[in-house]
Structures are given as C-alpha cells and as structure tokens.
C-alpha cells in the first residue's frame, strides 16, 4: 500500500481531466472535483477558467473553506445567467457527482425508485444535468463505487444524456449529444473508450483488483489487456493541494 492518502491520489488524478481542454470553464461540483480543477488550473492547464463558486471568474483558484483575508482575484462577472451563455456555447467541462450511473453513462441526481410520481427517495431534481451533458464535456466523481451507484439497467431518472442509441433523437449522433470523459471513483479511473462506448477501466488505485471493480459495478465493464495503476501525486501537486485546501477539508470526504 501507498502512504499517499486516497483522496489526494483521486484529486491529482482527476486534475488531469482538463489537461487537453485548452481554455474552457472548469466546474468542479463538490470538494474533490473543485480541488481537482484547482490543481489543474495551477499546474496542468493554466489556461482554464474557474469561478469563485458564486458569481465571478477568478484569475486563480480560490482556496476552499474559510478564506481569512484572502482577496478574490476577479476577472469577469459570471452570475448564473452568464453561466448559461457559457454552457450553451459548449466551452465548459464540468465534474459532477451523480447518485446513479448506468452502462450508457446516463446519470441521475433527481430521484430514486420505480415510481416517478412517488419516489422512494426524492433528491435534488435534474438540476443542470440535461443541459450540461448535451452541451459540453463532463466527468464524474463517485466516492462510493458500488452497485447502488453503477446500476444494472438504466438509472431511475435519466438526468444526463449518455451513449444510449435507443434515446437518440432524429438527426443526431451519439458523438454530438454526449461527451463523457472520465469517472474517478474510490476504486479506480474509468472512461467510455470500450467498444461501442462501453465503460472501460483506465487505472486501478493501489490495492484494488479488477475483480473488485467489476464486482462493485452493476454491468460489464471493458478491461483492456494492461490496466495500469493510478499514478502517485507529485510532491508539487501535494504542496498545491495543501495551499488550495488549507483546512484539510478533504480528509473526511471519503468517510474516514
């Protein structure tokens, strides 16, 4: 086993998600995605755009948690109405945390249960998932890789479009509607690079086996011949993380 904290490994792996994106808005919803985007903007792709998670684009990522005398480095007003201009233009790559994901990459944060009119568990609603998923690139962070998340069949409410040919509207191709990049879980890294957009194992975190991943996933994943290990963060990345998360809020997100 490695002495690198798993959450640090995931964040630094996920920081590569925007590596080749050029100048797009990186939106990380939740602590791990946000820190991943922040590390990326500080070290991997310095052309990224980020917000203060409220109403401004900033020149440098804002540290998470209480800010003390930190001064926002604003560069552009970016209230919600402006965010939609950006989304609809497509120059964004969001990393979000769905509650369910299926083999097509269809994701759900709305509700769980078989009866839409009386959900077993109502959650948030579809939020911006339908619009995000069909307008720009998306990646997922899943802190609890399990069959409850990676469900057999379809998710209970398809909030974001996936690679599902049965749901394709006339005149559209899956490549036009869907651009899911990576899934970072507490076990591994996945993408949709298998045959016919099958979910594919990209790398395993230290101590995790292919069998464990398949066992925790409600559908067959594509396993290439050689699956590597999720790389260790560099000392520079870990130093950045310490700056960007000065209160070590990330220590408990995986349920330590």
């Amino acid at each position, binding site marked *: 086993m490695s002495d690198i904290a798993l959450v640090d490994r995931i964040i630094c792996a996920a920081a590569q998600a925007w590596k080749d994106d050029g100048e797009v808005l990186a939106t990380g919803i939740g602590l791990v995605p946000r820190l991943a985007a922040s590390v990326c903007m500080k070290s991997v792709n310095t052309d990224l755009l980020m917000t203060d998670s409220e109403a401004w684009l900033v020149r440098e990522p804002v540290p998470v948690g209480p800010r003390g005398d930190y001064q926002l480095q604003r560069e552009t007003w970016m209230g919600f109405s402006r965010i939609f201009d950006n989304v609809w233009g497509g120059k964004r790559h969001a990393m979000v945390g769905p509650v369910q994901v299926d083999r097509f990459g269809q994701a759900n944060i709305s509700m769980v249960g078989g009866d839409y009119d009386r959900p077993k568990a109502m959650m*948030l609603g579809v939020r911006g998932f339908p619009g995000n998923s069909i307008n720009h690139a998306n990646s997922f962070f899943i802190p609890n890789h399990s069959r409850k998340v990676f469900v057999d069949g379809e998710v209970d409410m398809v909030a974001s479009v996936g690679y599902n040919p049965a749901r394709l509207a006339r005149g559209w191709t899956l490549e036009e509607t869907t651009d899911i990049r990576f899934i970072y879980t507490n076990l591994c890294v996945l993408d949709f690079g298998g045959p016919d957009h099958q979910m594919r194992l990209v790398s395993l975190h230290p101590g995790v086996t292919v069998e464990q991943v398949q066992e925790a996933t409600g559908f067959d994943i594509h396993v290439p011949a050689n699956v590597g290990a999720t790389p260790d963060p560099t000392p520079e990345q870990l130093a950045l993380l310490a700056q960007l998360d000065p209160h070590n809020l990330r220590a408990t997100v995986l349920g330590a």
Partner: protein
Amino acid sequence: MANKLMNPQQVVASIQDGMTVGIGGWGPRRKPMALVRELLRSPVKDLTVVAYGGADVGMLCAAGKVKKLIFAFVTLDFIPLEPYFRKARQEGAIEVMEIDEGQMVLGLKAAGMRVPFIPTRIGLGTDVLTRNPQLRLIDSPYDNKQWVAMPALPLDVALVHVNRADARGVCQISGPDHYLDDLFVRAAKQTYVSCDELVEDAAFASENDARLVFWERSETTGVVHLSGGAHPSSCAPLYGFDTKHFKEYVASAKEDGGWDAYFAKYVQCGEQDYQRQVGGMEAIKRLPLPVF
C-alpha cells in the same frame, strides 16, 4: 408619479387560487421569504409554483399551497435535501414539471419575449422528455435535426426580494448575482417586490448604482418595505442565510406534526413576532455571508 408601496397583505390579496407564481432567488439565496410567509398565512390554494427552489418551495408544499411545481431543483445548498419538498414528492402530493435549470431560463425568456417556445437541444436523450410528454419535439426549417421546443412559462405573479427599491418600483440588487430574477419579472403579468431598504428616487443616479437595476420600473407592480424580508435565506451583501434556523426547520420535518409546530411558532405569529423570535434585525444583519 405612481406610488407602488403596499403591505404584504395587499400583495397576497392579489394572488388568486390556481394562479402561476414565480419566485425569484436561488436555493437559499435572496428568496422573498416574508412574502412567502404571508402567502402561507392566507387561504390561497392550488398554486402552480415556478422556482429555483429552496425553503420557499418546501414551505409552500408543507402548507398544501402547491398544486403543481415547475422546478429544476429544490435545495438548501449546505443541506442538500429540502425536507418538505421531499416529503411532498414522496407522498405524491404535488404534480411536477421537472426540467433543466437552463430550460427554465428559456421558458421564462420566451414568456418575457412573448413567443410560444424557444428551440433547444436540452432534454434530448433524458427523462425530462419522457416525464414531460407536453414538451414537444419539432423539426427545424433550417436543418435535419429534431429540437426540443421549450414552451414559454408565463407567470401570473412574480415575487422577488431586492436590496433596495423606491416607491416607484425602481429595484436594485447589489449582491454579486441577480440570479434569474429579471427573467421572472419580465415573464410575469404582475411583479411584487420586497426590499430590505426603501430609498428615495434619486438613489440610483450614479452609473454604478443604475447598472445594478435590472428591469424598468414599468415591470414592478408593487413594492413592500420589509427589512430582513429574505430571512432565513441570504441577501448579500446585507446578511447571509441563517444556518441555525434552517437546521431547526429541517429538523422539524422529522417530527410528527413538525410542520404545524414550525408554522405555529414562526408563521402564524406574523412577521413582527417572526423577526423577534429569530433575534431581530440586529441578529439578521450579523448573519455571516456564506462562503461557497
């Protein structure tokens, strides 16, 4: 010169059973909560509510005011799940039109522009279409693709809370984001605004002040002066949201008769008693702005 000052009772008196009411703000941020509380006290029922929802939606659901909810989310942000909205959904107590956040933008824009729909790709491939069969797919005369025709969402009434307003209905939002409030206002036949500060007409003369006015006063029907009127939601830069109060509100949902107890303690009593019970304006002004 029109004087649009009203009291909350007059606002609620102009809302009739079955109307479609849009509520500005976003989640737990700058919601016209005092006007919502007045609505809770009234006999009005069977409302269709359109909102980027927070406790406004939760309370209206709990009080049985909502026939149909048009929403993309309902959340308190730091407490992700809104308990009374959740309960209403899980009990099948309300009809819903669950759409994407941006689709709601388009629907409100279409209503403000007085067109029946705006085409969009949003919703394609998702259950937003299967759960809302009234959303129609259309052909474009200019390409070979199908598009979602997002219908206009016209409102009978919009309720919004702003930082400052004058008696003529000039409204200023001085926090960092006006959210989609201008779209709610333009989509509505009547707009009622509560404001933390009532100011003189000359208050907006500087360029920076006038730029923070997001709609013409001709869009404002009535103005209610209600300091702290967004509480327990936030009204940046004046005050943050009241996490302690929200926690009590959320906890109430776990008790039998919890809503009735919350209602009796915080709603029934009227706005003056409400503010006294939450510590008065001094306590509200001390609520720290949230850090996101």
